[in-house]
């Protein structure tokens, strides 16, 4: 016998900000029993880029902090 004990204490969240919820994914506020999420994606090899990522620009706030330091 395998005993699994879960204690859910008080849960209070101020704000949730999400940019995107992709395919076959979920956002739930509540309890659940079983979740199964599958994703299969097949693409030609020439469309997959393996290499260094292009650097993204720094956020504006980070630029301010880095210039101050």
């Amino acid at each position: 016998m395998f005993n699994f004990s879960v204690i859910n204490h008080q849960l209070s969240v101020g704000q949730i900000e999400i940019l995107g919820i992709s395919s076959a994914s979920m956002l739930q506020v509540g309890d659940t029993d079983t979740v199964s999420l599958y994703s299969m994606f097949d693409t030609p090899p020439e469309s997959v880029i393996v290499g260094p990522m292009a650097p993204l620009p720094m956020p504006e706030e980070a630029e301010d902090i880095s210039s101050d330091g």
Partner: protein
Amino acid sequence: MTRMNEQSEHSYPVRTANIGSICMISVSQAGCVQIGDRAVTNAKQIGVALQRQEDHPGAGDVFFEMYPLFYRPLPYFDDPGDDNGQVVSLHRTNCAPNITVGHIQVIAAGAASSIQAGNGMCLTGESRIKNVRQYPRPKPYPPIGC
């Protein structure tokens, strides 16, 4: 896996989700937004993107059944404890009757996705996408002198 769900005596049987506000810009193809409880969810999305040199009327129809990706079985979780008859006993204690979230902001939710404020029992999401590029095989050059 065999499961036994139990709850202790000093516990709330069901927690209620309290949400102040929700702001969503886009929920696309077969996406689901629900405020409330739900028993079973089966969300499925399949898609083929075929890039051809010929046009589609000339090159023939495309069927999902042509590609094994769309009918291969889903991966199965092989639990060794299940073969041994092992039982998992789950004890859940809810100290508070509520889950509170002030504000939820979502820009976009994709296909076969689920946004839910409430309790669920069984959720299954499945996405199968295939991209194909179809070009004719290049003709070999004739040998020199022909």
